[in-house]
């Protein structure tokens, strides 16, 4: 899945923090509008469309919660990631209630911020897939991006999930490595067949205990088998 250039609004009044966030997202090819005043930010949101808003809570002019409230009231469903330094944890819960899609408590890890932002942007551009794929005792909820093996919910990485989705969509079908490579990495990402082996290995490990499993078909590729056949 190639990363397109996205427009991101950053509302953060601490200069160092804002600068670091802006640089990070610009480095991976996004356009970042950085506002330090809450009131200004609220006005910009009204006439500009963004792929993601990163919102600090404590702001001069208008606080982050107020902006969020106005935003959702006006029917704007842009993903919002809230940054909070407030000591009360209720703030975090409150943020989700007010319609934030995710939150991070300061101080946070910048890689984590980037990863979460990525998820939010993808969720938006990827459309609202809510269908459930089942293969044997493996259930994939594409909306919630969660995978269950029996009663156990297993945490999968994005590419592992994509790999499983591709194979589970047509159980029993043998997928060649090249085919999987295209599906998972897209065309402009450099990856080789070894990467597929790596992901299949991880996926097998994470699906351990399931009746459904990934079978290697020598010389051809991989297939997902639902039942308990050998």
């Amino acid at each position, binding site marked *: 899945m190639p990363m397109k250039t996205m427009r991101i609004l950053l509302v953060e009044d601490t200069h160092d923090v804002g600068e670091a966030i802006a*640089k990070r997202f610009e480095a991976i090819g996004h356009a970042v509008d950085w506002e330090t005043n809450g009131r200004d930010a609220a006005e910009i949101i009204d006439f500009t469309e963004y792929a993601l808003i990163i919102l600090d809570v404590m702001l001069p002019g208008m606080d982050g919660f107020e902006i969020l409230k106005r935003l959702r009231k006006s029917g704007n469903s842009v993903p919002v990631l809230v940054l909070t330094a407030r000591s009360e944890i209720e703030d975090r819960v409150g943020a989700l209630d007010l319609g934030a899609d995710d939150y991070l408590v300061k101080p946070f890890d910048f890689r984590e911020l980037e990863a979460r932002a990525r998820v939010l942007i993808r969720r938006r551009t990827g459309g609202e897939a809510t269908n459930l794929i089942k293969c044997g005792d493996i259930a994939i909820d594409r909306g919630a991006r969660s995978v269950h093996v029996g009663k156990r919910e297993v945490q999968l990485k994005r590419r592992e999930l994509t790999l499983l989705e591709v194979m589970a969509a047509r159980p029993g079908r043998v997928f060649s490595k090249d085919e999987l490579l295209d599906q998972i990495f897209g065309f402009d990402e450099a990856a080789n067949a070894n990467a597929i082996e790596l992901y299949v290995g991880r996926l097998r490990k994470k699906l351990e205990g399931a009746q459904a499993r990934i079978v290697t078909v020598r010389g051809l590729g991989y297939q997902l088998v639902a039942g308990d056949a050998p």
Partner: protein
Amino acid sequence: MHHEPSLFARLARRISLVLGIGAALLVSAAWYYAETAADKAYDRLLVGAALQMAESLSVENGALSARLPTSAFELLGLAERDRIFYRVIDTNGKTVTGYDDLQSPVSPDGARDGLSISEGTYKGEAVRIVRATRVLADPSVTGHAYVIVAQTNEARSALTRELTLRATILVLIMSLLAFVGAMLAIRYALQPVERLGAAVRRRDPHDLTPVSVDVPRELDPFVSSINHFMGRLNERVDLLQRFIADAAHQIRTPLTALSAQIDLLGHDKLDKAGRQHFERVQQRTGELARLTNQLLSHAMVIHRADSIQLEPISLVDVARRAYRAAIPITVDPDIVISFEAPDDRPFVLGDAVSLREAIVNVIDNALRHGTDQRLEVRVRSDAIDAYVEVEDDGPGIPPEGWEKATQRFATSKSHEGSSGLGFAIAQEVVNAHGGTLGFKARDEKSFTVVLTLPLYKGSAT
């Protein structure tokens, strides 16, 4: 510490003293009255006998003759064991009959009415002596003739003893009843003190709300000073917690800025040694950030334990949310992480925010210090309790270190730095929910942290 004697002992001692003195006074009085009564009774007999004797004196042939009546001796014989002495003296002072040396200690002049009663000794024995006077006006014999009768004291002493003994028994019985009654009354009266003591003892150490036990008016000053003290303590604790929260908050902003600067620095432009230092700085900043968050979290759960009303919540929902929050997206992709929940949704009476914080901290600890390849979060329940289990395949904590692990800033050997407040927070929370934090080492490749919470049995909403 030097112990004052108990209130009960003090009261008991004083009441016994008063009862003892009272009993002694009563017994003395009883003895006095008994003696008086015995004297009166026996004196009557003695006087009667003496008068009869005096009456029987007559003058025959110009001389005083004493023909003593048997009735007088019968009267005296009523006191069986006592001996009688008598003497009849004529108008000239000569003994007519009886013991020559029997004297009345009272001089005849002092008792003109003719009758005197006195104590005395005769032949070495204490006796009661009565003297009756007979005035003779016979032509041949004129003047005063006397009859002296003495009687030993045995009968009257016996009567005195008996009367005193009976009175003493009554006094003792009454005193005993009074003592027992007083002890029961003291015990009853002191019950509120015990109740108050028990109520204060039973208190949760975090509970600094005023004591609300119904006590008698006399204990009000005591209770209000306890409450006043608690109030002040509570203010101090609040102040301290607010200070911690404020301090942590104040640290957050520059800390975020610091990590921003580190991030901006970027490690691509550095040489190998510089990169090592850079990674160290990054790692330490991360530790500092985590510790700050834990400090806040700790202050928060303690604050909430005092102030938040518990309500029935689904443990699976709380644990799932904690699981999602605790596992960073950037976690090592080779780790197998899973969440398992039972079909029935166990409910517990709790504070969702604190519980979530507890579970997040346990998972975070496992991710940082435990997990090698596998991390499993499980919720399960039995008839009594609900459990959240966090299992990893790391080295775990050896059993001898389990107790220490829940202490604040306990350090683990296998890691530099400390595991911080994670377990302390979790323990604080589960204890406030009436649960426990435990550890389980199944084998070499599995270490489990178990949060046990009492199952909520009411109707779940």
